[in-house]
């Protein structure tokens, strides 16, 4: 992993002028995914309906996130879920659907 992707200084979500309201994580999977995004994007907090690209992500970072999710949850998440219209809520769904690679729970 690229160590540079993990940031010390976070930007407050409020400063980004997001199009939707902040929605809190509702499950353990959503909480872990939101934390993982927050680390990669250096934005906090991450709402479960927030769009990855609207939060400042780009396709390269999405690729790092995909691999981080696979590692964190022991799954192989669909690429489409990560790159096309990604939200934490949708990814949590995709993690649930994804085939296990290491027998970890979601």
């Amino acid at each position, binding site marked *: 992993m690229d160590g540079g992707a993990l940031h010390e200084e976070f930007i407050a979500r409020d400063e980004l002028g997001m199009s939707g309201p902040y929605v809190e994580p509702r499950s353990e999977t959503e909480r872990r995914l939101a934390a993982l995004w927050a680390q990669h994007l250096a934005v906090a907090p991450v709402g479960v309906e927030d769009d990855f690209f609207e939060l400042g992500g780009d396709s390269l970072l999405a*690729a790092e996130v995909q691999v981080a999710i696979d590692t964190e949850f022991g799954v192989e998440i669909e690429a489409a879920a990560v790159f096309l219209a990604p939200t934490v809520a949708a990814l949590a769904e995709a993690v649930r659907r994804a085939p296990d690679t290491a027998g970890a729970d979601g």
Partner: protein
Amino acid sequence: MTVDLADPALYARGDPHAVWRALRRADPVHWQPGTGGPGFWSVVRYEDVQRVLSDHTRFTSERGTLLNLLGRGDPAGGRQLAVTDPPRHDRMRAPLHRALKPRSVQAHTGVIRDGIRALLPGRDRPEFDLAAVCGLLPLTVLGPLLSLPEADRPHLVRLALMSAAEEDPAVQLPQGPAATLHRAHRELFAYFADLVRERRRRPRGDLVDVLLAMEVDGVRLTPGEVLSNCYSLLLGAGVTLAHVPTAAVAELSRDGGYEAWAADPGLLAGGVEEALRWASPAGHFMRHARHDTVLAGVPVAAGDAVVAWLGAANRDPAVFAGPDVFDPARSGNRHLAFGAGPHYCVGAGIARVTLRLFFAELFARYASLRLAGEPVRARSTFLSGYLQMPVRAGFRGRGKEQR
């Protein structure tokens, strides 16, 4: 002189060569003010284009090299070969360059030739869209290089087109050009993410494996860097190769030039170079000044964007005698269609091999090619070429066709 070089309509319906000709004479380092964003410099003379593309000490590639990124930066800067400056650039380039050397590429020529033969229509279809036929040419090359399944290729061609000509009505989504770019970009990344995952399981010895094994200063590329370079390879070939044959045929079908070139096998390689000069499929590449500098006597401020128009350089009368004549026998043709300097197209060798195979097949199969309708040029500042070109083919005698 008021011209809008950032207007894609100029390249679809206007006469960019007339505009460039006038600029070369009167205003060769031309400033275009921004409308709501930053402006940019344009260079249109051969010497200046070559200098801007080559001199990475004065002009960086890391803030994006296409006009549609002006003022936005490029997240791939420093991470994807084409938008990384030396010295890191050179270390990323070496393994790709090795994999694309003529000797390495030789293994693929049979497959590429078969692909070309399958693309070109036979006697049962004398009228066809040459642009559509050529549209699949890049994938006959990238297919074997990246081990892309046959069934995926038309979709990839379309996504590449959306990424390079997002303003064109043939590919633009209803949500507009920016949404088109994003969509194409993300779909391609998703596609390559799946491909890379598959390749990690089962290496195929292709360019994806080269990227996966690449180490720069002892560090592997990150997953994002691997995908970004796959994307760049697809675009590098995907939006350029197709436009060389169509540009040549559009010009040559008017006056018997096609038959003359086809009749002389000794002109194959030189004619391909002329077709590259003529087509200049990559219309421009952009750089940003690293610091205050002077370009052909004109002061350029640190951070300013400079756009090098390759199509203009390739018609510069200071370098090419009779620049507006297509001459397959032209000698000393030092065109800039593949760029210049450290970023000189890493796929140039395989592009040349492919184009020679393509023209050889074209000439072997068709005694003549005539336009059978109005060709349609792409609406794009970058992609210079035709997206539709109805032609009528005259076939050679049976014996020759069946070779």
